[in-house]
């Protein structure tokens, strides 16, 4: 049976036979770069379509159904439209920062792609501090938003950016704490090792109620971190028209838009890796027969299945809940999520020390 790891090994061995080791590395890097960019574009298209479908079905509508079979090419058409639109820069804007901001958003999203394990033995960069890397890089996202808001010379944009700054800085805490709880349980910062530690069951099931609480907090916190409704205060359509990207148009806007979806994908991938075992099939303890049956499903399908389930969860939130107010948003973090997750990590540490998990 083919798998991603076999394909990559095949390419690697073929390259090392035909080229010197330096060239092999260079070519492999180029291939990886192209693969990431392709995945990027593909994910953007798929997620936008998925969002529109989910929204439509929840809202008793049909959703996109005109472009292509069943509306499949709708997001491609949208991209085309955005490509040919004029990317305007407002007169009073800080032109350099204004044009830089969308690229920073993209670069951050791309950087986050590196340590994610898409399938067994299929990873761009097996980093031994993967979790730390992800938390560190993901907080850079706010810089692009602040930059965009500040440079636009628009009061709505500025307010959106400031809101987003306050929001991401606060929610980083509880997201970090709930990620820490898994690090405590598995005893490693390496994403691959965390996945391996779930070979006898996912942490969500192994870790009793504290991990479930950590998972819920993680989902809430990453929804806030990616500026998705009900925490989309940085955009807040009905209050700030479009928040930090009010002044953006054309492809510059599309980059922000794409970065948002890629960020959603990445945080969901991280969530799936930490709590749902990444590419690890569904295993129950040491029940070998069952585990073998599960292993027949390729690991990439497990990974993408879990990730898309979490993405659906986040989309489901968006189309159900009203938006919070800025002070309530901070209240929620500082009065509820943070104390709960602090207490929770204490419990989990206790659990890990005493070995109370399965």
């Amino acid at each position, binding site marked *: 049976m083919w798998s991603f790891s076999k394909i990559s090994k095949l390419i690697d061995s073929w390259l090392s036979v035909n080229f010197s080791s330096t060239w092999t590395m260079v070519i492999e890097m180029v291939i990886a770069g192209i693969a990431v960019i392709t995945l990027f574009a593909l994910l953007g298209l798929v997620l936008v379509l998925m969002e529109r479908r989910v929204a439509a079905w929840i809202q008793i509508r049909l959703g996109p159904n005109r472009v292509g079979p069943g509306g499949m090419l709708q997001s491609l058409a949208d991209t085309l439209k955005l490509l040919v639109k004029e990317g305007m820069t407002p007169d009073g804007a800080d032109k350099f920062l204004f044009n830089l901001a969308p690229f920073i958003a993209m670069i951050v999203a791309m950087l986050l792609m590196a340590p994610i394990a898409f399938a067994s033995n299929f990873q761009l960069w097996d980093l031994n501090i993967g979790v730390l890397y992800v938390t560190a890089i993901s907080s850079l996202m706010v810089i692009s938003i602040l930059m965009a808001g500040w440079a636009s010379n628009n009061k709505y944009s500025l307010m959106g950016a400031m809101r987003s700054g306050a929001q991401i800085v606060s929610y980083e805490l509880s997201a970090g704490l709930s990620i820490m709880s898994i690090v405590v349980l598995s005893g490693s910062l390496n994403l691959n090792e965390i996945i391996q530690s779930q070979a006898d069951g996912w942490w969500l099931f192994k870790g009793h109620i504290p991990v479930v609480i950590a998972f819920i907090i993680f989902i809430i916190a990453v929804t806030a971190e990616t500026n998705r409704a009900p925490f989309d205060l940085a955009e807040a359509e009905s209050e700030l028209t479009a928040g930090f990207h009010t002044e953006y148009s054309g492809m510059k806007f599309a980059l922000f838009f794409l970065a948002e979806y890629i960020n959603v994908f990445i945080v969901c991938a991280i969530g799936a890796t930490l709590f749902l075992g990444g590419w690890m099939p569904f295993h129950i303890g040491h029940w070998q027969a069952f585990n073998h049956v599960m292993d027949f499903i390729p690991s990439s399908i497990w990974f993408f299945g879990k990730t898309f389930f979490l993405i659906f969860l986040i989309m489901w939130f968006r189309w159900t*809940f009203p938006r919070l107010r800025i002070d309530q948003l901070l209240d929620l973090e500082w009065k509820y999520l943070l104390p709960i997750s602090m207490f929770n990590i204490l419990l989990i540490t206790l659990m890990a020390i005493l070995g109370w998990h399965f």
Partner: protein
Amino acid sequence: MVEEIASTADGNIILNLGPQHPATHGVLHLVITINGETIQKVEPHLGYIHRSIEKMCESLTYRQFIYVTSRMDYLSSHINNHACALCVEKGLQIEIPSRSQVIRVLMDELTRIASHELWWGAMAMDLGAFTPFFHAFREREAINDIMEETCGARLTMNYMVPGGVMQDIHPNFQRRVKEFITLFKSKVSEYNELVTGNIIFQNRMKGVGNLSAADAISFGCTGPTARGSGVSCDIRKLYPYEIYEKLDFEEILESDGDSFARYMVRVREMSQSISIIEQLIDNIPEGDFQAKTKAVLKLPKGEFYQRVETARGDFGVYIVSEGGTTPYRIKYRSPGFSNLSALDHMARGSKLGDLVAMMGTLDLVIPDIDR
């Protein structure tokens, strides 16, 4: 912009909300003085779609001027038309047949439900929840279909004429209305699940946009806006017109005076309207749907004022007649105009997000304000 913020000693900036803004539902222009997220002052600038309907009506006859009023508060166009028809009938001193009275009241209440449905969805959208908007439109669509069948149009029907209604009800009318009542009752619990009971929604609405009863009266607030503050102001109860005094319905009052109270008044009013429709739908008396009137209507010299309760509040038509075929002067007292004047008072000191919620609960319809 940076210079502008730096130049103000107290850090206040001026923000233009509108005339093109998703939360203003039209072309309302609010100039907000804001400090961070906190609102210092709200100043409405109106007139972007002022059509001077009052001046326009001065050159239209008493039959013709009614249709224009549909274009004011387009969500309760039936009730506006009703007020005008009643005012002309008051001047002509004609009794209208009981059948047309019942039809008029039925149409009024259907319009009220449709208006509240739209408000409900639009207000949820102001708060960032998009789904309720579509769900509300499903029920509103059913009403619009009924209207289309009987009146021939979905929004600006021009169904009320001096002396009764323009056409008799469609044979399907009673069946369709009953179907709608069943549909509405089966769906009304969803409103609770999706919006009313939601913790985020309640936190956004409770304790926000407080308006005391005394202020509500002083600002001339009417309709659900004032009833949310505990002011009894339902014209249907206080100054009954048509057959409202014979009907058994409740004037919804909430005492909190915040956005949530105003929200609850409207949601509960929908059920009251349903109950009115249920009382009437099987008891439409036989008879004419229109009283005999002269071809050319002439109102005697004098002044005539008619108040009715629209979905937004106390709507008044003030006709000054010189005895001719056209009114000498018409004044429309629109509820939205007075309700809007309380916005500044309510919004001071609250957050920008709350302002949007408050505008949602005031149920502003801009053509109603601008006329």
